[in-house]
Structures are given as C-alpha cells and as structure tokens.
C-alpha cells in the first residue's frame, strides 16, 4: 500500500472525539477565575498607585515621572516573591490578576533566570532569562517601531 501524505485534515473520528472530550472534560470555573483575577489585578493597581503617590511626594516628581520608580518597585517585589517561592503560590489563586500586570513580566524573567541557573550564568541565567518574557519585549518594540514610523512619515 502506497504512502498517503494527504491525511492532514481532521478525520471524522477526530471530530467525534473532540466533541466527546468537550462533553467529558470540565470547563474552567469561569466566574470564579474572572472575579479573582479582577480582585488581584485591581489590588496590584492600588498598590502601584500608592507607590506613584509615594514617589511623587518623596522624590518631588510629577505624576508621569513617578510612574517609572513605581513600576520598578513592583518589579522588585515580584522578583523577590519569585525568589522566595511565593509568587507561584499566589498566582495559582490570582491567575491573570498577577500575570497581566508588570508583576507577571518580572516573574517570568526571575523564574526563568532562577530555574536555569543550573545551566550556568551564560547558558542558563543569561540566555534563558528571556524564554517567557522575550515575546513581550519583541512585540512591544516592533509595534512601537511601526507606529513610530507611521508618525514620522505621515504625521510629522
């Protein structure tokens, strides 16, 4: 029997099985997850806002300037919690509530750097640090480049 390379589309069996799985496997607790994410995301926003006001007054900055040290502080806290082994425990409950804010970004860098330290500073910490966060940086920069280009050429 000759080889049939065309077996690419979902077969009838596969479609039927996908339906069976959908019926058998439970859905995530949509409501509970959404509410927890909302609560924790809001909480982190509050804490961040608190730091913004703190730096405004102690470092005599305006609102826009104070955002930078506030973000850096949140990043520090998230990295520390990652090192202490607490961040993943919080994330199990909070879900996107801690991964959507910059705390998630910090955790992805810190957890990767921490995990791959066994592979040494160069192969491990240095390179693999960006395994999870890299896409965020890449897409942010590319987006900003395209939009900046549009502004430079068409608007200014």
């Amino acid at each position, binding site marked *: 029997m000759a080889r049939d390379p065309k077996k690419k589309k979902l077969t009838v069996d596969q479609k039927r099985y996908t339906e069976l799985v959908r019926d058998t496997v439970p859905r995530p607790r949509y409501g509970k997850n959404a509410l927890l994410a909302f609560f924790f995301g809001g909480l982190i926003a509050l804490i*961040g806002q608190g730091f913004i006001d703190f730096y405004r007054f102690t470092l005599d900055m305006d609102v826009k300037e104070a955002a930078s040290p506030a973000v850096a502080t949140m990043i520090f806290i998230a990295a520390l919690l990652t090192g202490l082994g607490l961040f993943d425990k919080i994330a199990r409950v909070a879900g996107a509530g801690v991964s959507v804010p*910059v705390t998630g970004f910090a955790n992805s860098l810190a957890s990767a750097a921490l995990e791959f330290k066994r592979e040494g500073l160069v192969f491990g910490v240095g390179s693999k640090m960006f395994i999870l966060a890299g896409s965020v940086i890449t897409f942010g920069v590319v987006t900003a480049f395209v939009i*900046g280009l549009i502004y430079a050429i068409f608007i200014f």
Partner: protein
Amino acid sequence: MEWQIYIWAFLVGGALAMLGQLILDFTNYSPGHVLSGFVVGGGILGGLGIYPRLIEFAGGGASMPISSFGNALVQGAISEAERNGVIGVMTGMFELTSTGITAAIVFAFFVALIFNPKG
C-alpha cells in the same frame, strides 16, 4: 491627593486583568500570547492617544498592566520621531521604559544568584 483615582485604578486594573483571564479560560491561547497581545494593544492605543488619557484618570490601573509597556514604547518612539524623524523612532523608543526593563533584568539576575528554585 485625589482619592477618586484609587477607585478608578482598582476598577481599570481589575478589568484589564479580568480580560486577560477570560481570554486564557475561553481560548487555547497561552499566557505568552495574551501578554504579547496586551503589549501590542497598549501600543496601538498609545499611538491613537487613548492610553495616555487612560493613565491620567486611572493612574496605577493603567500603568501597572503590561499594556502600559507597549504604550510607553510608542510614546518614546513618537516623541523622538517628532524631533528627528525616522531615526528618532529608534533612539527614543526605550526612553520611558528603560527603568522598567533595567529593573526587571537586574532584579531577575540577583534573584537567580541568591535563591534556588524549590520545585
């Protein structure tokens, strides 16, 4: 100090996080996909001038989510582009985000040096 901003911060920060959670639960996209999407979204809203206004009235609620990173990159690129054209796009991009990126890399590095993964 305006207390109003804290209420909006909570609501907007919460809403953005909830949006992320709903996408994770309802689709097959991974956290990496969702966060990349947020950054691109923040960048586009920044380019349209919407995100800076969001930051003005929601404060931390808009500047804490990762979408603000996209906005900051865009704002940096645009403000230098106004002065130096296309080259300015590249020189100005990390102006506003360098604190965050530097902090993230440096703290991650030191955490890796000091702590050990617990599994």
